[in-house]
């Protein structure tokens, strides 16, 4: 089972982009303190996103005819790895680059592709994903937001989304809504619509999280009128499209590197204080070994995307392992530092540790909870 996941090497031409990209990142975020870098893919800086787009690091898997770079998931793997390792603020373009672009490429009409994809590649069209609702978290098929098609073909959207990452900074939302049938129809009758967030009738309220950040929001739709071409893909096929999209969302290196800025800061601390006892070495090595295996797994899943597959089960398996590791990191590093109470800890490292500790529960919530992922794996095992 899962034999398709095998060690996969990055092509040399993709490895080759690291130096120039790294220089661009370092020059852009030189002043960013470590605890801000630890925000990882929740750090929002639209000018940095545009800079990446101008330099050709966005839209990597989009074809050149839509102003994409025409490379593929392996190239994106390298770019993502470099961005996350440095702790660059990537939230601006993250969702568009990771999943909205590929979704529009796969299911969009020619007009939709020509309209959205070039702007995504330039970092100029920022997207968010409207999935969760107050009554629909893990049970996504129960969404109640509803778009009714009017006689002239336009859509009238009513309802509410919540926990939408970066809705307040985004230009568009790709929303999963009901377009036919009733809640009893579950996965049937759902569609994906591209919602222009500047349209009248939309209210966006940021939600402050326990770290003091406001990275997600609630979004209200009140008689929002959308053009006929807001529909992406086929009416009623939203569930199938979302499932394919989630394989993109769940498979990337962002599911293994959320705590890597903290690890690096801690390793530099250990060197500074000269601590090399066996308990310390074992903890350092254990984290490195796990991080290394997770990277190979993430790369193996990426190779399935390159092969044109939609590795839904494999991506779930990797994400569950990856986020469990990411969550263990702040617990273990916190314990390590506090097990040496006479050792001075730089306040910047402390702020980073506490930020990651507090935000870590979200690692296994965003993009599908641990329990949902394990249910998907169980289905892949033939248990349900």
């Amino acid at each position, binding site marked *: *089972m*899962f034999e398709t*996941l*095998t*060690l996969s090497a990055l092509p040399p031409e993709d490895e080759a982009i690291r130096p120039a990209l790294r220089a661009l990142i370092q020059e852009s975020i030189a002043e960013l303190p470590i605890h801000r870098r630890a925000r990882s893919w929740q750090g929002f800086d639209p000018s940095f996103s545009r800079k990446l787009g101008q330099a050709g690091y966005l839209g990597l898997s989009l074809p050149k005819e839509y102003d994409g770079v025409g490379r593929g998931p392996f190239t994106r793997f390298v770019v993502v*790895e*470099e961005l*996350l*390792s*440095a702790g660059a603020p990537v939230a601006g373009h993250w969702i568009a680059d990771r999943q909205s672009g590929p979704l529009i490429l796969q299911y969009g009409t020619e007009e939709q592709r020509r309209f959205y994809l070039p702007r995504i590649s330039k970092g100029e069209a920022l997207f968010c994903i409207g999935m969760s609702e107050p009554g629909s978290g893990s049970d996504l098929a129960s969404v109640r937001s509803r778009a009714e098609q009017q006689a002239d073909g336009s859509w009238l959207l009513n309802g509410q989304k919540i926990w939408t990452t970066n809705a307040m900074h985004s230009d568009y939302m790709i929303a999963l809504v009901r377009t036919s049938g009733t809640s009893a129809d579950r996965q049937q009758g759902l569609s994906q619509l591209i919602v222009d967030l500047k349209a009248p009738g939309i209210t966006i309220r940021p939600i402050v999280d326990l770290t003091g950040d406001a990275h997600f929001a609630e979004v209200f739709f009140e008689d929002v009128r959308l053009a006929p071409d807001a529909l992406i893909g086929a009416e009623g096929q939203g569930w199938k499209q979302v499932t394919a999209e989630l394989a993109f969302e769940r498979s990337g290196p962002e599911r293994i*590197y959320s705590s*890597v800025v903290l*690890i*690096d800061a801690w*390793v*530099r601390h*250990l*060197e500074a204080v000269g601590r*090399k006892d*066996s308990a*310390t*070495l*074992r*903890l*350092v*090595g*254990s984290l*490195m*070994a*796990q*991080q*290394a*295996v997770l*990277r*190979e*797994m993430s790369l*193996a899943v990426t190779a399935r995307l390159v092969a044109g597959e939609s590795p839904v089960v494999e991506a779930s*398996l990797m994400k*569950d*392992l990856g986020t469990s590791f990411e969550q263990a990191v702040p617990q273990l590093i916190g314990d390590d530092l506090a097990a040496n109470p006479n050792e001075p800890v730089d306040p910047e490292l402390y702020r980073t540790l506490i930020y990651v500790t507090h935000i870590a529960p979200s690692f296994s919530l965003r993009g599908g909870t641990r*329990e949902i*992922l*394990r*249910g998907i*794996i*169980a289905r*892949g*095992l*033939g*248990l*349900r």
Partner: protein
Amino acid sequence: MDMSELIDPFARLIEDICTPAAIREIEQGGDSSAMWNAFLESGFLDALVAEESGGAGLSLDAAAPLIALLGRHAVPLPVGDTMIARALLAAAGVEAPEGPIAIATGAGAVPFAAVASHILSGTAQSPALTAAKVEATGVPHDVDAYVGEPNGSALRPIAAVLRAQLISGAAGRVMEMTVAYANERVQFGKPIGKQQAVQQQLSVLAEQAVAARIAAAVGARSGLQPKLADAAIAKHGASLAAGQVAAIAHAVHGAIGVSEEYDLQLLTRRLHGWRLADGSESYWAGILGELRLAAAAVPTADFIRGA
């Protein structure tokens, strides 16, 4: 070469000669020469020996699926150890004996030493071969044994990579057996595999089995003298998984799983033994931690990439 041309015949050979009954017989002190001779005559023992020395000249990477099959079927003889020993001996110009060779890398119990004719120690460049003089562990039906003096701690990385590959094969089989059992065993009017609590456990088992396989593959990628970091990643990952895989498999199987007559124990006893052999997860974590702190300024993402 199409690897299935090698893997399929090897799988058939093992299925023919390493039946659960044959494994139990050897574990209980029975004669292992027939099983061994079948492996010897098959030519697979020289899979890793260079072609100019009369072997198949496979890289460790290419031969890894063969080694995983040995783990998958709980082969009770040091076939993988002997493959590696023969390759090292041939490279050093030493003629290999016909019998099974175990690799001793520390003072603890040596896998398969009780059924080996020779013990390999020394280093990869100058391997040393001695006749096996072993001391039983006192553990019932154990094919592992103490070997006393010969100690090839320099062979620990390659032995760890081998052990990781065996763990990977066994873990995959344990996963399949456990999923199949969960689909068959009915309680509360339905297969226990329909219970969410059991499904969640089996998902973790699957994750660990895949992680063990990927970790083992990392070890096999740099050949018979593996990079220290690769060996550490491989054995740490496989050993970490071994304990969890065995625990979940037994939890799902219930009492039948710990009975002698049920075949699960043939695999899980090996998983525990191989987890401890040639350095446990903590041993290899310490090794990797030392390498990491020697390069503290390097970002983790670069370090694990070997950049």
